[in-house]
């Protein structure tokens, strides 16, 4: 074989764009569009007086429709070919990204944390940006919490916001009636939410999949409606205001303090600025989220975490191996709810005011979307998805009424391209090879 024929063979073997075929296909599609559009758009009846109808022609509309279909079909065909070529080389953007990411988990994590820590100090940062960062981190924390239930244990929970609400109201009530501060109430918020998680867990022990989703959805609504209607305790739709702000080891963030109390800016000899509290709150949620992450990562590598995953994979096999499915499920619900409760407690102190309005189904849906979009069980995926779902819509405020449309389209697109989530890579909880010893 000569070098030239080899080259030709190679060229033939390598897939290239098929322009002629694509143009023909697009022309065919636009012909169909013309046939459909001609009676539907091209001919229009109107009243010419005396109840009679005349016909007006709109061939320009038909031409526009045909052109749009032609262009759309051509782009779609070519895009598919481009993707096919890339796939035949065994690479897509996401597989490369995921492979690169899984090789460099540690540096990416360190870079991410460093960026998060430095965010308030960066030159372009503003109060708005830090507020947005706080919101994203709340969702990241909620996502990591729900990941225990949905991603690891495989229990589809559509009412996760209930535990968030329980945590928030626990703190608000403890503060209002018993004078608890944020740091004193934090463990109680987690505990109360966890016990609600276990309470929810009991009736749904036998349920899975869709049925479980419906019951948890109902549970979320029950909590919200109770909060709305139990006015003497929860304040009903008016909510609870004046929830205390967190203090820095007992130093409040205030312009002036009552007699005998030193404020943060006085103690450190700084000029008073409301930004100090905003930045402090940002760091509080950063620490809470990182602790949540470490906690769930650690649990995943323990027997309890492996039992959650085993339960997700096959409940019957779990029973046959002597694992008590009741305990495993309740622990997943309880721990997931506890993390949601912590986040709720933080939410209450950050807002300073809570009402049932903040705990609607859309919140549950958003948190679940973050977990599913990120890739079930993937910690890094949750961060990525939270930024995508919470921060991007903020930047899209300019589009106003199209915001939800773009948001929905983006979700559909991601689910089409990455049906298992953005980063669906599972790292084994233990390895034989890593122990690096001869048999």
């Amino acid at each position, binding site marked *: 074989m000569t070098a030239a024929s080899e080259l030709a063979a190679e060229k033939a073997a390598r897939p290239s764009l098929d322009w002629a075929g694509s143009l023909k296909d697009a022309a065919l599609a636009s012909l169909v569009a013309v046939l459909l559009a001609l009676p539907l758009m091209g001919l229009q009846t109107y009243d010419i007086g005396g109840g009679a109808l005349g016909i007006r022609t709109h061939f320009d509309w038909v031409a526009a429709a045909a052109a749009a279909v032609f262009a759309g079909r051509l782009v779609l065909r070519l895009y598919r070919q481009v993707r096919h070529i890339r796939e035949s080389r065994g690479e897509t953007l996401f597989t490369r990204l995921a492979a690169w990411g899984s090789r460099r988990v540690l540096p990416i994590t360190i870079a991410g944390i460093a960026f998060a820590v430095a965010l308030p100090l960066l030159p372009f940062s503003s109060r708005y940006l830090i507020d947005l960062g706080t919101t994203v981190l709340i969702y990241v924390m909620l996502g990591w919490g729900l990941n225990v239930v949905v991603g690891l244990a495989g229990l589809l929970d559509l009412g996760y916001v209930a535990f968030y609400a329980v945590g928030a109201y626990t703190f608000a009530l403890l503060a209002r009636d018993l004078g608890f501060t944020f740091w004193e109430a934090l463990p109680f918020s987690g505990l109360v939410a966890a016990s609600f998680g276990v309470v929810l867990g009991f009736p749904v022990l036998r349920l899975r999949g869709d049925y479980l989703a419906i019951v948890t959805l109902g549970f979320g609504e029950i909590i919200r409606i109770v909060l709305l209607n139990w006015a003497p305790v929860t304040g009903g739709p008016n909510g609870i205001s004046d929830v205390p702000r967190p203090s820095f080891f007992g130093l409040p963030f205030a312009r002036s303090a009552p007699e005998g109390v030193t404020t943060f800016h006085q103690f450190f000899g700084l000029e008073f600025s409301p930004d100090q509290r905003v930045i402090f709150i940002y760091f509080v949620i950063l620490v809470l989220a990182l602790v949540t992450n470490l906690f769930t990562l650690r649990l995943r590598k323990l027997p309890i975490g492996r039992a959650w995953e085993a339960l997700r994979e096959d409940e019957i096999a779990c*029973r046959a191996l002597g694992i008590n499915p009741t305990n495993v499920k309740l622990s997943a619900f309880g721990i997931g709810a506890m993390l949601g409760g912590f986040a709720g407690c933080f939410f209450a102190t950050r807002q300073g005011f809570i009402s049932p309005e903040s705990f609607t189904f859309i919140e549950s849906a958003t948190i679940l979307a973050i977990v599913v979009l990120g890739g079930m069980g993937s910690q890094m995926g949750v961060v990525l998805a939270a930024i995508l779902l919470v921060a991007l819509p903020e930047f899209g405020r300019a589009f106003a009424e199209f915001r939800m449309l773009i948001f929905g389209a983006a979700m559909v697109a991601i689910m089409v391209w990455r049906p298992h989530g953005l980063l669906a890579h599972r790292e084994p909880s233990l390895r034989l090879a890593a122990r690096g010893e001869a048999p």
Partner: protein
Amino acid sequence: MNAAAEDRTPLLAVEHLTMRFGGLVAVDDLSFTAHPREITAIIGPNGAGKTTVFNCLTGFYRPRAGRLAMYRNGECLLLERIEGFKIVRQAGIARTFQNIRLFAGMTVLENLVVAQHNALMKASVFSLAGLLGLPRYRSAEREAIDHARYWLDKVGLTEVADWTAGTLPYGAQRRLEIARALCTAPALLCLDEPAAGLNPRESAELNELLLAIRTDEGIAVLLIEHDMSVVMEISDHVIVLDYGRKIADGTPTAIRADPNVIKAYLGEDQGEELPETIAADLAIPRSQ
């Protein structure tokens, strides 16, 4: 030999087991015993109630009547009174499933470590010691991995220990499921059609594995199997079920000649002689 068998204490004694689903009697007044260090096979046509017996033994069904006694360390445990998931731990009965039930998304090693959940959970003091990374938990985890490693070597899956279980070839998945059941340190291993879907070479390897489990490890095996070459070659004792009733019970040689068994497999109207293909299946392989 039969008289000697009667004298020994059985490992498992099933007495008058009856299981009904609505009007259907799946298992009807079934009694049999399984002895330590023996392979007991349960055979019978499809729908004879074999898997139902397994489900009763391993706590997935609660029998309507009868007594399921497991003799372990001089104690008699009544299986029908033990809560389903506790049977593995208390009575030491582990099982596999007819349609393989692995934790497909987890690695081979993780599958085997999950099987040691209860011991590890105790060592991690309900995750507290584990969360803190105390040495006590870490050594327990190392032990669990070593135990898993032991069985991986036995079933020949050490090379693929870090693979995702669902990506293994079919035969390897069967062996992994057996290894996973063995990781629970059972006294009796119940295998539901372990040779189904295996090629002749894999089937022969399985025979060797089961004999090793019986002889080297001293674990009794209760086996449901359609593949007669497996049953006849390795079983010490065969029980034949038909329509939920026991129709024969004895050594493989005795079963092969039993007229009731021939009738159940071939139907009433068939001649006395077995067609050659089935006779060949039932025959004890010469190689033994």
